[in-house]
């Protein structure tokens, strides 16, 4: 009994055929691998290096507080409520928030020659504040910044501090912290964990935006969203200058290398197109034979694109890996994984785009003219 076939090639067989073609046509395969490897290598060692440098600079700028927003009650008339940090932290574009109360001088009652500013702390400590000794304080306890710890002679974090201007009981210090980046100024203070349900007003609320893009939006809504007796008296400070600098650097630092990347990709595309054109010219009778055997134009195009993709993948991986090794050895700074994946994907896309018109042209040739034997 004769079987009736579908006339639709199986995907696994098309893949196998492309693999076989890539193995059989060594000149084409090696050329494509070399071109893609060169393109990816050149991009990684030029644009990749610039991208890594740009990322480092932006990281440093971000570390200086492009996302940190400070609400302050400069005149002391705004009356920021203790619930404010929790309310601000609950906003969707805010990563964290905490509040500080009014500063007062404290000293170590045992060794009272040193003084430091103490502020009430409401809210969780951000990741930029890390403990160097002890633990974070519970309500009624305190922690001291590393500079304040020296001033107050708090050895290993075990001391007490007392308000110099009042007779309230000393507060136990349970930890020493170090603040980084935009909160570095806190290293000279003593932070006393306070009750968020209490009634003492805050002077500052610090909030960290989830990203730079939402800082403007947060700036507009933060004052009105913050629980305070007189919100109009609040001052909102954003690092507008740092954000502007960040935008300029993000735009210009890598511009030259991105232009170079465009040139490299353009040259690569031309070389891929020329290689595939030469291949289809030398394979025209193969293509004609396949048409006669029942290959549709789309099957032929898909086969050629798959063959290109296989060779290009190998070339892109080789070139990118070589570029990363060179960067690691020469500059010790690597572009982000996202950049690496993007370059590899872009190179692969470039190869497919360059091959498509060649494959389409080859698949549309008149089989009669190709196959006729004079």
């Amino acid at each position, binding site marked *: *009994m*004769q*079987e*009736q*076939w*579908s*006339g*639709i*090639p*199986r995907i*696994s*067989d*098309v893949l*196998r*055929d492309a693999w*076989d073609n890539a193995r*059989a*046509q060594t000149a084409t395969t090696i050329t494509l691998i070399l071109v893609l490897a060169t393109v990816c290598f050149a991009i990684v060692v030029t644009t990749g290096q610039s991208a890594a440098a740009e990322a480092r600079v932006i990281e440093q700028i971000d570390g200086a507080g492009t996302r940190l927003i400070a609400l302050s009650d400069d005149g002391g008339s705004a009356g920021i409520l203790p619930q404010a940090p929790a309310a601000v932290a609950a906003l969707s574009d805010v990563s964290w928030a905490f509040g500080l109360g009014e500063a007062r001088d404290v000293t170590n009652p045992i060794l009272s020659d040193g003084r430091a500013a103490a502020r009430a702390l409401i809210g969780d400590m951000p990741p930029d504040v890390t403990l160097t000794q002890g633990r974070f304080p519970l309500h009624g306890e305190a922690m001291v910044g590393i500079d304040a710890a020296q001033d107050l002679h708090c050895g290993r974090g075990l001391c007490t501090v007392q308000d110099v201007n009042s007779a309230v009981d000393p507060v136990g210090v349970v930890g020493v912290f170090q603040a980084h980046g935009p909160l570095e100024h806190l290293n000279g203070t003593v932070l006393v964990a306070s009750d968020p349900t209490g009634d003492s007003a805050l002077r500052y609320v610090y909030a960290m935006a989830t990203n730079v893009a939402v800082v403007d939006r947060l700036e507009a809504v933060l004052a009105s969203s913050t629980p305070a007796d007189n919100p109009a008296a609040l001052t909102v400070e954003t690092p507008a200058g740092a954000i502007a600098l960040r935008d300029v650097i993000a735009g210009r630092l890598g511009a030259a290398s991105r232009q170079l990347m465009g040139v490299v990709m353009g040259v690569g595309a031309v070389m891929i197109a020329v290689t595939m054109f030469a291949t289809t010219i030398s394979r025209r*009778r*193969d293509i004609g*034979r*396949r*048409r*006669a*055997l*029942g*290959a*549709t*134009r*789309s*099957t032929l195009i898909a086969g050629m694109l798959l063959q290109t993709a296989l060779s290009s993948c190998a070339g892109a991986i080789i070139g990118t890996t070589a570029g990363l090794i060179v960067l690691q050895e020469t500059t010790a700074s690597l572009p982000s994984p996202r950049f690496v994946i993007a370059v590899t994907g872009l190179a692969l896309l470039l190869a497919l785009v360059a091959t498509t018109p060649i494959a389409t042209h080859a698949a549309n040739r*008149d*089989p*009669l003219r190709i*196959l*006729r*034997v004079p």
Partner: protein
Amino acid sequence: MPGLRAKSEAGAGTSAASKTQATLGTTVGTKSLEFAYSRGAAPVITDLTLELPVGAVTAITGKSGSGKSTLLYLLALMITPTSGSILWNGVSASALSDAERSRMRATEVGFIFQDALLDPSRTVLANICEAALFAGMPRHQAVDRARELAVLFGVEHREDHRPGEISGGQAQRVAICRALLTHPRVIFADEPTGNLDNDSADVVWQALADQASLGATVVVSTHDRTLADRADLEVCL
């Protein structure tokens, strides 16, 4: 003026025929067919109407440049007529889309070329299996069938060789194996014995006659008078 001339009854089955599978017939024909290579050029084929029967070998003959190969490629749906139509089982197949015509070639047609036209980079077995890819024939079935055909046509000891390592006669036998792989209902052969010695030409002819006896429609373009004389029908262009 081209004409269709009946010459004998369809060929009887032989040893090869007894081992290949029977096919269900497909009649191929033309109606008022006209073809020119480009607009405004003199037509190569004009007003040709014919029907090629199932179970017979039809030879297309004529002088060089008379349009033998062109008619073969038209019948095989590889090119489309300037006017008129190609009929498969009475239906105009030339009006189908390129993809549909390709699928018909993949599933119903076996094609044999003058110079075998094997892929030089692949083994004999892989060359035979090439037709399976486009027909959607499962690979394991294709390999089994290819080995069966290789034994039938005496090239089984060459299945791991490349086309450059086998003779012209063997290459043409491999091409026949490739053409028969998918159990085609219609077989087209373009000068299949053009480059072969007498013994190899006999093998090719016998294979074609066997397929006709099993119910296939076999169309051969040839300028070889001996081959044309052995055909059941002749279309002289």
